[in-house]
């Protein structure tokens, strides 16, 4: 074998599908138990996928099985965070990215509303101050 093109290459399906390792099923069971807890006690759960040993394709297979539901949102804070509800209501896929778009962590949140979407209480008082400041400004008086 002397040339690069002589090396036989077999291209495999890289689009997910059922993984041979069987590593996806235990995660789905964990999600199922967390969902049952959420339904019965209201307790939320967050699963950090970077702590789970996945084979190439396992993560895509998991995302494929969870699917995409009705809600998706983007939070622009320290880079983009994409929050998507899966086809199972209450099961959310949260992907944190850096400003350079590197994936920092991927989490599955089992909750009614992911915490990052709620407005922080301190921001409410800041918002009130900012709006009061605008309404008392000459610009606001003129436009009224």
């Amino acid at each position, binding site marked *: 074998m002397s040339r690069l093109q002589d090396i036989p290459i077999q291209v495999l399906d890289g689009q997910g599908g059922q993984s041979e390792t069987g590593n996806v099923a235990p995660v789905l069971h964990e999600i199922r138990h967390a969902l049952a807890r959420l339904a019965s006690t209201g307790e939320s759960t*967050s699963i*950090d996928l970077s*702590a789970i040993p996945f084979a190439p394709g396992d993560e895509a297979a998991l995302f494929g099985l969870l699917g995409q539901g009705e809600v998706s949102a983007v939070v622009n804070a*320290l880079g983009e965070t994409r929050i998507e509800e899966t086809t199972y209501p209450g099961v959310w896929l949260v992907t944190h990215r850096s400003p350079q778009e590197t994936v920092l962590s991927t989490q599955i949140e089992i909750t009614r509303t992911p915490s990052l979407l709620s407005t922080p209480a301190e921001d409410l008082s800041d918002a009130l101050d900012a709006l009061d400041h605008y309404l008392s400004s000459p610009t606001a008086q003129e436009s009224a």
Partner: protein
Amino acid sequence: MKDDQTLGERLRESGISRRGFLKFCATTASMMALPPSMVPAIAAALETARRPSVIWLSFQECTGCTESLTRSHAPTVEGLIFDHISLDYHHTLQAASGEAAEEARRIAMEENHGNYLLIVDGSIPQKDGGVYSTIAGITNLAMLEEVAEGAAAIVAIGTCAAYGGLPHANPNPTGAASVSDIISGKPILNVSGCPPIPTVITGVLAHYLTFGTLPELDHLGRPKAFFGNSIHDRCYRRPFYERGQFAETFDDEGARKGWCLFKLGCKGPTTYNACATEKWNQHTSFPIQAGHGCIGCSEPDFWDRGGFYDALSVPTDDAGNILLGAAVAGAAAGAAVGLMNRKKQNTDTRAHEKVTVDDLNGD
């Protein structure tokens, strides 16, 4: 930067929103291998975290550990943490050299006596008075003893600093020793690996910065959060091991299908590290995922523990038979294999089996 600012104050001053801070805490928890339920505790601790002085000493080493850390990521969230530490001495990275560099070290030691964090990479040669490695005319041995005296804690980065590493390999011509062989009476944390995983280095430093303490350690002084499981236990190829499906050569059907590399010498069952989950190059892959067995680089004396391509010993000649048996018989049989493997490691260490060209060619 004001030295008395907390990390929380600094982040807010640099315009990071509250949602940004929450995201920062969530990704920091992930980096420290802590469960997401710890995020509120991290947020509270970061609010009050103070800026520590860090002195980094590089001894008998190849600079691979510093390379690993500095090439870990493009500037990202953990960059904010490193903006917050005061790296007062690192002779590879600092602009100053010669006497000016040593003066910076002495000033940092004096001003932060009892409070600075000491990071060491590289082993320390002890033979012949430690003459085999010196910096500014000072032996590594003398410099370590001097700087360790006023340190709040010491982090030994890399297998050389943690256990002696390659310089310590038989016949150890320089009398290389680890930090904990020389220093006692100080908290010492080992982040082993050749090199260590960059996110493990940053995770450990983030833990110290956040909580002001060292994390819980295993019997070899390594943080349990990252070194609590063997590579084998967390390997995505583990299901193939349980089914007795092994690659026999690097180009057979088993290798192409990604089966277990145990028979090709993978040291995953006796190696404790986080490669299988943290992975390398921004969580892209790790050696086993690339098709090569683990060489056990985060374990003491890994270089002297037999050929990298020799399978760990098992009770029969055929790994497949015993492993299938182990899967059926459960933990007891698994423990027996573990004991055999440890015995084999010790025997190999004594016999000092060398890796030959034939080993590397797989003949």
